[in-house]
């Protein structure tokens, strides 16, 4: 893949606020042309990651690149190619919607007035109303229209679904999907609602406890993650070859959620498919387990699992 095919690339990216790390050792690559979901619990570092990608934060460690350009230092090239909508979808409250569109046209060389206008018209958002007088959902739609009107190559959206009603959510996700197909737009959107995303997202980044737990193509993730059910045993044998994300035991039975590195030959394990939601929850549970590590055995044993973002991270987490 050359630079043009990589929408977003991070390498050992980290951000510290004071003494607290909001994001650590974040390394992943997003190929261009896909919708990627960034999931994780509140405070996991999703907003930090998106703002680093948008050039609004300067990395403490490592780097982030948008189509090969560092958004913070090499600003203009990256700024022209990205669209960003913050969680609170800020707008100039005193500006009318028409003023905001004029702003978009004045400040962006590739501005697409037609699309932005058509979109607002379809949503019946009046152009002469001041942004401050619009409802929260309408404000979010205007902010999205501004970001789309910019004709970005990468759209970064922080919790875009939060202020939309279910119907608007579906409509919005469909527009994103169309844009990826028609314009080759790449999208990275954060959310903690997994079910909504499964339909449109091809890629997934799981962020928890300031670290990337998993990053990859969803089909691939579904194919490589299996639930193994077998007689009660120590999962060490499996863990030596595969990544055990979650292990639970009953008196006679052991259930594992594993990421398979290749084929599993042991016939004593029965393999089952797992839903994306279960995989996400397992990773989130795992990282939560890390946070309380040392508090004794829990039913969800953590067994030195490494994660997709690199073995070094797993090692450090285990310390």
């Amino acid at each position, binding site marked *: 893949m050359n630079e043009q095919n990589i929408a977003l690339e991070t390498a050992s990216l980290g951000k510290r606020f004071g003494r607290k790390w909001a994001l650590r050792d974040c390394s992943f690559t997003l190929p261009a042309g896909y919708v990627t979901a960034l999931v994780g619990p509140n405070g996991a570092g999703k907003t930090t990651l998106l703002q680093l990608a*948008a*050039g609004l934060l*300067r990395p403490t460690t490592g780097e982030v690149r948008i189509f090969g350009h560092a958004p913070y230092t090499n600003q203009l090239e990256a700024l022209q190619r990205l669209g960003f909508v913050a969680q609170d979808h800020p707008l100039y409250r005193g500006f009318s919607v028409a*003023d905001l569109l004029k702003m978009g046209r*004045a*400040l962006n060389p590739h501005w697409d007035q037609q699309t932005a206008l058509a979109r607002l018209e379809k949503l019946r958002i009046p152009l002469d109303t001041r942004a401050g007088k619009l409802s929260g959902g309408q404000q979010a739609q205007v902010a999205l229209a501004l970001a789309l009107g910019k004709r970005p190559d990468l759209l970064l959206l922080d919790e875009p679904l939060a202020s939309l009603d279910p119907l608007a959510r579906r409509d919005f996700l469909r527009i994103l999907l169309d844009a990826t197909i028609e314009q080759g737009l790449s999208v990275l959107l954060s959310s903690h609602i997994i079910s909504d995303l499964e339909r449109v997202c091809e890629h997934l980044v799981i962020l928890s406890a300031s670290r990337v737990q998993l990053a990859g193509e969803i089909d691939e993730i579904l194919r490589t993650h299996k639930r193994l059910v077998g007689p009660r045993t120590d999962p060490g044998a499996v863990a030596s070859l595969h990544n055990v994300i979650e292990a639970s035991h009953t008196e006679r039975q052991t259930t594992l959620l594993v990421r398979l590195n290749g084929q599993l030959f042991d016939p004593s394990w029965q393999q089952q498919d797992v839903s994306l939601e279960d995989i996400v929850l397992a990773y989130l549970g795992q990282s939560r387990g890390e946070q309380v590590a040392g508090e004794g055995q829990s039913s969800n044993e953590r067994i030195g699992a490494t994660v997709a973002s690199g073995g070094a991270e797993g090692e450090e987490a285990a310390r």
Partner: protein
Amino acid sequence: MIWMTWRQHRREALIFAALLAAFALYLIVLGRAMYVDFYHAIGGKSPALCLQRQDYNEVCGNIINAFISKYSVNTQPALLWFIILPPLLGMFIGAPLVARELETGTFRLIWTQSVTRLRWLLTKVILLVVALALVFAAFIPLIFWWKGPFAMGGESMMIGGQGYPIMGILPFAYTIFALALGLAAGALLRRTVPAMLVTLGGYIAVALAIWNWGRQNWLPPVITTWNPYASNGPTNFKNSDWILYQGYVNQAGQRVGIGDAFSACAPNGQLDDHVGSTFNACIQSHGWLSTVVWQPADRFWAFQGIESAVLTGLAVALLALTIWLVRQRIA
């Protein structure tokens, strides 16, 4: 960015334009009345004629005093609006420029458009400075015109005079400084109201420091010392020279307070300081000399230049700090 700057700041711009227009109107209307009085002769004497002929007898003295008391800064305090204007601009345009974006979160909107932060900031600052330069340039001749009658009497050109800060290029220099102070305070504090207060406080502190300590020392003052026993001293002082100290010094050059001199040489309060008087003989016996420490009036533009350079230097430093904060530190 030009349209954006106008759209975002048009309300403040219009308010300040209205204030300035009102001030210009006040200057013109009152100035015309003043010039009528200045040339209006009563009993063959007008303030203008008296000053022209350097006629300072009792009739002329009364006429001139009446004129001054009617039109000086003391009786027309509205003139001092021009002194309040720079800190107001710093507070209401400078301080919110960065701070409000940070406060309302709109920096996440504006800083992710296809415009770098540096260009965003500099466009706004340059447009602001150019607009203000045009406005203040228009006021320079207006204020000199208003001050014309006083200039004939000397008062207006006095560097330390009350009208001095509103003359020439100083209002513009103070405004540039106030704006930069507001910008830096806003970028540093990230809150509009605290930034406005810090701007006001910082402005007052710097202005007072310049007015009380800085201005009199922009250039080393001229020190004229003479022996009051031998001569009446120099007579070539102009009304508009800025006298910083007038009194006695001992042989070592240390100042002798007027009070000390009086209690030593005029214990009954009677003063006769002509050459050869007993008072001067007494001063002479102590070995004291008369001295005047002063800034000549012809340093007017040199002092304007130095003070403006100091303020502009401060403004540039504050702007550099703001640029660094906006590009490197914020968010």
